[in-house]
């Protein structure tokens, strides 16, 4: 066989442009996470500096003896307003948290109101109500604590509220069954014809139209987007191993899925998937202006215009994500340090830490949303 013929044959395999883009995203993210030996550009240096500063604070706070020097360290490295308690939120809005000590609403001035023994909760679409779940009860409550209705159901988890100001729906899971009911607590329906749901919070598509579209993950790792009014399935994705979190963009055009080895962005209309190769993303959330925060075990990444930036990389595990309603601040948690950390992502690069979270809530809570 001639060498020429072999060469011609070896040029046959087509190049995969989508693979090239996926790999480039991953390589770029890895490059952003590395610390170059030589001086980085100004902007990148700032991000690294912020991560390093926060890492130093968190490391000091992990040990009780170290806590005594935390404030001094914070002053030295530039973290402003290091607070021993939550005196105020850095942006307007109200924060909802829930956990072992129940559900709480935190106002912008730092005042807190306990809503009851509900370990899970989420806001209604416009922040007028909270839907809260105890193991065998679903309840609609005002932020002032007035209970509007309750519904007894077994093993409720992941209550989520969606819809418009005039017509809302609530979705929740019981074991692997998906349920949908009206916002007034009536018409509870088991979506019996649909595939069983995985232990992943369902997500309502944000919309101004009078329709109710829900995304959920099946036990086989597929994403199903269903029009709950018509009972019709809009699209079903391929299966993804380790699928465990969903988030819609605020304009409702994109749906993000965190899976074991990747994040998948779906076009809301067609279901067409674009993959971002990032391993181990445990939570994700869109800001109001379309930036996507990705939470890994010890790294908080921000996807801006197709680029992944490292926003925060403390030495300990981080948990939870909540964007402020104005999209300027991102709140995350350092459970081992018993701290919350507010990261300014627009209009400045401040980091505000709040200590003694457990003492303020009775148990370290999970972030459930920051409403306007």
């Amino acid at each position: 066989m001639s060498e020429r013929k072999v060469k011609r044959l070896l040029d046959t395999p087509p190049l995969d442009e989508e693979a090239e883009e996926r790999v480039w995203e991953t390589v770029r993210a890895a490059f952003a996470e590395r610390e170059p030996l030589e001086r980085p550009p100004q902007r990148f240096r700032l991000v690294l500096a912020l991560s390093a500063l926060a890492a130093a604070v968190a490391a000091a706070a992990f040990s009780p003896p170290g806590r005594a020097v935390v404030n001094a360290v914070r002053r030295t490295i530039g973290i402003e307003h290091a607070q021993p308690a939550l005196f105020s939120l850095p942006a307007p809005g109200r924060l909802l948290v829930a956990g072992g000590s129940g559900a709480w609403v935190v106002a912008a001035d730092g005042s807190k109101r306990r809503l009851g023994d509900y370990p899970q909760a989420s806001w209604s679409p416009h922040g007028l109500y909270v839907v809260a779940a105890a193991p065998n009860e679903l309840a609609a409550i005002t932020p002032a604590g007035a209970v509007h209705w309750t519904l007894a159901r077994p093993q409720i988890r992941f209550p989520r509220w969606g819809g418009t100001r005039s017509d809302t729906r609530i979705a929740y899971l019981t074991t692997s069954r998906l349920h949908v009911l009206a916002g007034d607590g009536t018409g509870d329906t088991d979506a019996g014809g649909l595939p069983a749901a995985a232990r992943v919070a369902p997500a309502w598509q944000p919309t101004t139209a009078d329709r109710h579209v829900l995304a959920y993950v099946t036990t086989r790792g597929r994403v199903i987007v269903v029009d709950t009014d018509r009972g019709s399935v809009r699209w079903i994705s391929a299966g993804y191993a380790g699928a465990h979190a969903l988030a819609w963009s605020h304009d409702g055009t994109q749906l993000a899925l965190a899976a074991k080895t990747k994040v998948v962005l779906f076009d809301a209309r067609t279901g067409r998937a674009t993959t971002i190769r990032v391993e181990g993303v445990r939570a994700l959330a869109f800001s109001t202006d379309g930036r996507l925060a990705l939470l890994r075990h010890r790294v908080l990444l921000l996807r801006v215009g197709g680029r992944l930036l490292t926003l925060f990389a403390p030495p300990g595990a981080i948990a939870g994500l909540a964007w402020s309603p104005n999209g300027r601040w991102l709140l995350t948690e350092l459970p081992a340090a018993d701290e919350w950390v507010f990261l300014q992502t627009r209009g400045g690069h401040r980091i505000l830490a709040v200590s003694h979270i457990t003492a303020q809530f009775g148990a370290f809570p999970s972030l459930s949303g920051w409403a306007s």
Partner: protein
Amino acid sequence: MRPPAVLAAVPSLLSAVRPEARAEPDRRESAWIRDAQRGSTAALEHLFRSHWPRAYRTALLVVGDAGAAEDIAQESFLAAVRALDRFDRRRPFGPWLHRIVVNRGIDWARARALRRELGADDAPEPAAPEREPSAHGRALAAALAELGPEHRAVIVLRYLLDYTPGEIAELLELPRGTVNSRLRRGLDRLEAVLQDEGE
């Protein structure tokens, strides 16, 4: 030696693989490496884009699986990023990357041969339909599948990437005679299979 047609169509890609250009990196590539070492994402992207086509194609020809080829090419670039600060700018980037790609490809192919393949029910569905290979591509895949990964690697290094047998011996840390015998045996086997396929 005439370059393969696809390389001739992309002149900017040729400099990194032509034997005469491999002794030293071209200035543009050196500048990209230097700037990437200083933190320039744009420089890294130039480096990535210029080396991606052959890194991916090399992996694909060695392992015969598009998904695995993507993973191998990705891991190779990630290894390059991790080692970027230690990289000697006086040396060309291509051979270093190709060595990683080929060795990882051989390792992957050996590992696959040892483990049981999943049943159809266990395999995840692709996120998008995979491209149907051409008849030409199927014949090549069948022919290459007849070879062991070590033979495929030598063939690809020689006839896709244009390395000399001496350079291949250095890259794979093999005796030159072994490289020559693998080339000969690989070509013979390819010829036999492709004749059976009617090529």
